[in-house]
């Protein structure tokens, strides 16, 4: 971002007349807005996609009416409806926490958007600790969920919050462990560097670099599903058990924030999977045919599609089975895979 701003300042006489701090500040505001807009567009598009995918799987049509073809305006219309709805706060809820909980959940997701590169160098904040930053910040979201669940003062919400807390805290471990393998091979935490390391054909993608990383990719995918509460791990908002889990009492704008964060998280986990395992913005051939962002977004949407496909196929796990899956299956496997990657690097150095 710094280079970008410096370049812009050098090129513009108007900006040169301003103090450099003002330019930085304006750039910050601009990029925040870009991140928010990008996140909102992603979320709206995914909601629409989810409806269409679910409809196809269930022999239905999905939205067809609003906006003419394909019902493309259905989700903007829904968003508008949610924003205009009355802002209800349950009487016995903790008003302060109830109000800031969606903001925290939203903020956590928004922060991760800052660090995701959608093309070679196309990133708002090129962080040296990129992937670690995403892992750290996304763990903030759970605070928002617990807060919302607790502040609603509803038993269903509380159960949802508790489940979310135990689930997300547990599944962070396999997520991190499965990503460490890639970090070891790439030798950097920087997402842009990791992406550059996978240029030059599908065989250079980390998913196919080593059998251990292939398995790690699957482990990451499963664990990440659990981290963003998607079926079959959607226990925090298990509709048939907990009504709607932590967001039972939420409506209108605040519900929209939770909802937006949830769908934007889909983008985040898919984007991380793409950057870490699926060659980021590189095409699967040694030469780049289309611009990087198109490849990147194509891969992300493919993963999102798979996630939705899974969601409309699978039933839900039970709490103890969820923990069993995490602690007794995913974590041991990802540890073994990590050791495997280490052994591979030791046996075949420089490969």
């Amino acid at each position, binding site marked *: 971002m710094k280079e970008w701003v410096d370049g812009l300042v050098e090129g513009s006489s108007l900006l040169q007349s301003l103090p450099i701090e003002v330019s930085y500040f304006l750039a910050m505001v601009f990029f925040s807005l870009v991140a928010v807009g990008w996140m909102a567009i992603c979320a709206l598009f995914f909601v629409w996609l989810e409806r269409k995918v*679910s409809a196809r799987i269930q022999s239905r049509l999905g939205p067809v009416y609003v906006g003419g073809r394909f019902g493309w305006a259905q989700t903007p219309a829904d968003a508008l409806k949610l924003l205009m709805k009355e802002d209800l706060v349950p009487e016995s809820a903790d008003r302060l926490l109830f109000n800031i909980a969606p903001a925290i959940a939203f903020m956590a997701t928004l922060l991760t958007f800052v660090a995701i590169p959608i093309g070679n160098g196309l990133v708002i904040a090129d962080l040296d600790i990129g992937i670690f930053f995403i892992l750290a910040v996304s763990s903030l979201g759970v605070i928002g969920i617990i807060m919302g669940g607790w502040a609603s003062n509803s*038993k269903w919400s509380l159960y949802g919050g508790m489940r979310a807390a135990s689930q997300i805290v547990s599944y962070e471990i396999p997520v991190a462990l499965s990503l460490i393998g890639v970090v070891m091979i790439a030798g950097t935490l920087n997402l842009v560097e990791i992406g550059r390391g996978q240029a030059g054909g599908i065989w250079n993608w980390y998913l196919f670099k080593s059998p251990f990383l292939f398995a790690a990719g699957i482990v990451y995918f499963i664990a990440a599903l659990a981290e963003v509460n998607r079926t079959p791990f959607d226990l925090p908002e298990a*509709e*048939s058990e907990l*009504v709607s889990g932590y967001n039972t009492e939420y409506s209108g704008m605040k519900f929209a924030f939770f909802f937006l964060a949830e769908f934007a998280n889909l983008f985040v986990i898919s984007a991380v999977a793409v950057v870490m395992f699926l060659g980021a913005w590189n095409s699967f051939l040694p030469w780049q045919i289309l611009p990087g962002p198109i490849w990147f977004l194509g891969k992300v949407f493919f993963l999102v599609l798979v996630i939705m496909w899974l969601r*409309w*196929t699978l039933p839900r796990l*039970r709490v103890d*089975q969820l923990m069993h899956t995490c602690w007794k299956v995913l974590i041991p496997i990802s540890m073994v895979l990590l050791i495997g990657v280490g052994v591979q690097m030791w046996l075949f150095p420089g490969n």
Partner: protein
Amino acid sequence: MPIDPTTRPGDFRTEEMILNMGPQHPSTHGVLRLEVTTDGEVVAAVRPFMGYLHRCFEKHSEHVSWTGVIPYTDRMDYLAAMNNNHGYVIAVERLLGLEVPERAEYIRVIMAELNRIASHLVAFGTFGNDIGAVTPLVWSFRDRELILDIFEKACGARLTYNYYRIGGMSGDLTPDMLEDVRKFLDYFEPRLKEYDDLLSYNKIFLERCAGVGVIPLNMAVNYGLTGPALRGSGMRWDLRRDDPYSIYDRFDFDIPVGEGRKGEIGDCWDRYMVRMWEMAESVKILRQCLAQIPEGEYMHPKTPKSIKPPKGEIYVRVENPRGELGYYLISEGKTSPFRVKVRSCCFTNLAVTPAISQGVMIADLVAIIGSLDIVLGEIDR
């Protein structure tokens, strides 16, 4: 807080929470209310409450004509209205001593078996939904619509059919309707395999259902369970075979029972799977019906205009999709019944819930309720 000296480490005193599940809750299949005492996620005790859908069916029946009761029976188990009609008209016909024409009997069996499939489809879909899979619900409703289309053609309604009459049916099944039934069966048989692929043998589904909510056979008998809930516990008991009514003794079909293939005998998966297998058996019966159905009257020509059964009482039970539905009628020789008592299968099936849901998790409780497949319209009547 003073610490009790007798407390050893690990003896945490935890506080139980009372959770009010329902009457408005996504998984209580209507307006059932469960008062769940929970210890964390674990259910310590369950008390079902019902009566939110009570409509005085039995009392109301005493004030309408014998025929007028039929539409009310539709509304008890609204997912199996044909079967409800069936039991009631058989009871009144036995009081009257009326023989039903052959063709009418076949139409009755066709309708009852189609409705059994429709009802089991809903059970399949809602159970899937309770476990967290939404697609089975939509698929089951998609295929159930085809049955409802046939019903709509035959009697004009999609939910509350009021098709059976004392002495026959309200209308004949025309050849194109029979063709529709045949077409449906051809469409439906491959779907059963799809349902199994999608849900029945899914590992997550098995984890959620197999070995959960086990009703041992002696408990099932002691609680008076009937229908798939009893057969799921391993007892081969089906009124269609063991106390044949109508013309069920003419057909060749099996009675699937739970075998504990994936867990223990009598678990949720067995109860669920009995229904899936029963749908295949119903298809078998329907195919035989279509092959055998004779020409003839669909209504007994000597059915009296004003129905006044002679003094007497009768108890008739039929095999509903959810269990044994019994009608106990007392006639005083008037135009309306003196007493109508219904032995509701869902009511008795529900009664077993508290006994088997101690120490399960909340998610299991949902599975148990779903696998018992209750319809509140029948429980409350």
